[in-house]
């Protein structure tokens, strides 16, 4: 075959990889080389041979694009195969397969540690050579694959967990792009990842010889984690991490290697957890009781993730709740048809919708620049359908989890809203329990959790949904309420509705919650009408946080909860909570709603730390035109100073309302607060 013809063959073969893969075979032994060459040709590879490592290196240096793979003997007189391996690894990114008749573990290990992608023993069998093209694929697409690390997880990694460095590190997407942000985020992620990996790969040379091993002690790892969190996992590149860590004798390579392991670790962590919940969900099946168990599993999962996260991400507010989203979906046993993740401004919105409900959750709203710098919100919505006799129950579970990092505050919002049975033919009992609770963990790292548990029982079917909703850790505008404004509101909504409604039953539950803190503003509105395809989650400017749960079932339940904590001066902080609740029932319904809210507000300047705990039990029975409304405050843990400069207390109120009127509205103003406190 003439050279031209051979070239033509090679060119043609290039189109059908691995046919025509260009390999360079290096062996000083002519017999081995000849056999190897023949075998490689038999595999339809394009082979170039040389019996000297030095010549091989020269060829590679001059035509580094001409080869896809290097196969080298280990023992060669002019240059040790390991040396060649090192140099090839250092200078060019080519997979190198080592070849030796010596199969001692030590030698093989040496080859692997020097960066050989494979180690073959002589005599090489053609079966082995037929597969070596995989190393080329691995090498070429390895970086890209690594870049494709689950976008979901990448997005869910805390954009910035270090509360001290919030500004400027949180990736932002406009809140209004509720539909598109996920894609944008994905691109963003992959770009970031590619970039990061590019840097990593550049310096993380696998063949980097004999560098002093770095022992990643706990202290060192802690610094590393702190640096990564400061940068944000997405933007953490080894160089910057190294700068932040400021540790002597630590190289970029060390950091890069550790960063890769760390990312893999994070990935593995979430994979294991979600797998566990999937198992629980699989066991759950359609049995509502088991669903409840599944939710308990979810709770356990959350506890698992948070604990593990705490162990690994010490002292930074880890946004672990977004990871719960797939778990929650799995719990429902319904595959999510759509998963949207957005990052807007300081919001990371993860949105998962089950197939039946095609509604969007958006995060419109302006946000003041000085608060809520980092908010990661993850919404998971699942719907579970079950038919029970002639009744159809649609359960919608929305888990809204967010992480707000603002001025040294981190908060996570997670909300579960159940969708009550949309159509109840016969007597139906629905029990809705919603348990939002917001906790403030510490002064520096304000972590607000708001677990919302919703349990609805349809006759025998009993579905319990619980989730922690870290919500609205907002720092009131740093000027007025200098420092931190902690609002921890564990809220319990317990509702039991038994409807003997023969016809259709629509249950609308709207929970509007508004929180105002003086000039500082944090607002969010969440509308969850499942059937309207309109769900808004507003974290708007001002101090408004509105949460509306629109629930449709046998009952119309509009639950407005307006909590306003207004402070005009650092020394003057008032809290205003207004709970407006409207219970609309067309037929005889019996509903119990228990709401408990714990609010905690702290201000450094004025030392305002109100803690409010409110329990609302609303029970309405439409058959009986009798409504009982009861508002009580069980205990006030700390004193509530009427000077309104500071109140550090726990307000626990239980409101029981039974009214004829379908609308129940209650406003708790500052005065109410004080009066309540005075009552106790």
């Amino acid at each position, binding site marked *: 075959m003439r050279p031209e013809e051979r070239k033509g063959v090679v060119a043609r073969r290039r189109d059908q990889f691995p046919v025509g893969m260009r390999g360079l075979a290096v062996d*000083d*032994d*002519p*017999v*081995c080389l*000849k*056999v*190897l060459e*023949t*075998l490689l*040709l*038999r595999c339809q590879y394009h082979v170039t041979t040389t019996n000297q490592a030095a010549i091989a290196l020269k060829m590679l240096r001059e035509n580094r694009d001409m080869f896809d793979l290097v196969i080298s*003997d280990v*023992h060669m*007189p002019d240059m040790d195969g390991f040396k060649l391996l090192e140099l090839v690894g250092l200078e060019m990114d080519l997979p190198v397969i080592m070849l*030796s*008749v*010596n199969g001692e573990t030590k030698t093989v290990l040496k080859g692997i540690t020097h960066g050989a992608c494979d180690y073959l023993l*002589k*005599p*090489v*069998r*053609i079966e082995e050579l037929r597969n070596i093209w995989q190393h080329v694929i691995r090498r070429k697409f390895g970086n890209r694959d690594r870049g494709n690390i689950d976008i979901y997880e990448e997005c869910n990694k805390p954009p910035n967990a270090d509360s001290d460095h919030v500004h400027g590190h949180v990736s932002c997407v406009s809140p209004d792009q509720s539909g598109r942000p996920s894609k944008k985020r994905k691109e963003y992620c992959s770009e970031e990842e590619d970039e990061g990996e590019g840097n990593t790969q550049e310096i993380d040379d696998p063949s980097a010889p004999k560098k002093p091993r770095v022992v990643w002690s706990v202290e060192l790892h802690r610094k590393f984690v702190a640096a990564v969190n400061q940068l944000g996992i997405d933007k953490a590149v080894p160089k910057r991490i190294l700068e932040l860590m400021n540790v002597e004798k630590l190289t970029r390579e060390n950091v890069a290697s550790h960063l890769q392991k760390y990312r893999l670790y994070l990935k593995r962590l979430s994979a294991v957890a979600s797998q566990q919940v999937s198992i629980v969900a699989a066991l759950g099946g359609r049995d509502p009781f088991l669903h409840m168990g599944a939710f308990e599993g979810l709770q356990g999962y959350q506890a698992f993730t948070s604990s593990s996260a705490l162990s690994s991400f010490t002292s930074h507010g880890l946004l672990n709740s977004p990871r719960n989203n797939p778990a929650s979906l799995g719990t429902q046993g319904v595959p999510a048809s759509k998963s949207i993740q957005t990052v807007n401004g300081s919001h990371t919105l993860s949105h998962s919708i089950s197939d039946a409900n095609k509604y969007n959750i958006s995060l419109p709203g302006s946000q003041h620049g000085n608060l809520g710098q980092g908010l990661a919100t993850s919404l998971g919505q699942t719907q579970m359908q079950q038919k029970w006799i002639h009744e159809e129950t649609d359960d919608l579970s929305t888990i809204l989890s967010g992480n707000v990092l603002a001025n040294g505050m981190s908060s996570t919002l997670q909300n579960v809203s159940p969708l009550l049975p949309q159509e109840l033919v016969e007597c139906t009992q629905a029990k809705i329990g919603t348990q939002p609770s917001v906790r403030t963990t510490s002064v520096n790292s304000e972590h607000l959790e708001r677990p919302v548990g919703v349990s609805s029982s349809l006759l025998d079917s009993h579905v319990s949904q619980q989730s922690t909703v870290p919500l609205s850790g907002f720092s009131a505008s740093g000027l007025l309420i200098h420092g931190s404004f902690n609002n921890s509101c564990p809220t319990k909504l317990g509702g039991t509705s038994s409807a003997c409604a023969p016809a259709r039953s629509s249950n609308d539950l709207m929970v509007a919650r508004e929180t105002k803190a003086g000039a500082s503003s944090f607002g969010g509105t969440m509308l969850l009408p499942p059937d309207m395809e309109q769900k808004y989650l507003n974290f708007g400017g001002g101090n408004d946080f509105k949460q509306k749960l629109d629930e449709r079932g046998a009952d119309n339940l509009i639950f407005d909860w307006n909590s306003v904590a207004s402070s005009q001066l650092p020394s003057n902080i008032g809290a205003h909570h207004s709970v407006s609740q409207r219970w609309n029932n067309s037929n005889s319904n019996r509903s119990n709603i228990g709401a408990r809210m714990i609010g905690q507000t702290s201000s450094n300047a004025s030392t305002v730390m109100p803690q409010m705990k409110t329990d609302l039990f609303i029970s309405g029975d439409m058959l009986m035109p009798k409504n009982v409304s009861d508002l009580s405050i069980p205990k006030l843990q700390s004193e509530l100073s009427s000077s309104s400069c500071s109140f550090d207390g726990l307000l626990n109120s239980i409101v029981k309302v039974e009214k004829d009127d379908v609308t129940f509205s209650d406003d708790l103003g500052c005065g109410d607060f004080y009066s309540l406190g005075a009552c106790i």
Partner: protein
Amino acid sequence: MAAAALRDQLTALLSSMFTQGLVDEQFQQLQMLQDEGGTPGFVSEVVTLFCDDADRIINEIASLLEQPVVNFDKVDAYVHQLKGSSASVGAQKVKFTCMQFRQFCQDKSREGCLMALAVVRNDFYDLRNKFQTMLQLEQQIQAYDPKQQ
């Protein structure tokens, strides 16, 4: 007619080499590679290479062992290379002998090495004779082939 007899002779030779353990599956694979891959002369080329190279290596080793101070590492390197080439060609017996040879090298035993060298040389010469017979038979068969066609 003569060609068929030669083929039978060649087949008998190869099978005897295999049963005697002179060659192993690797050599059979090389033959298959030649027959199926359309690379005529491949086995003879490899065998010739092996014979020349092994002969050279054995002579090198012999000269090294004659030195007043034997560089056993160097000897070991040569033995290693011989082992590699014999493994590649499928010269099983030589390969096994080389493995024993390497043990003497690591023990730095001149006597052991000299004894092993004698064994290797003997095995190699034995194999080389067979190989040469084989190559001659193949050449004769080749010479008949065009006439048959």
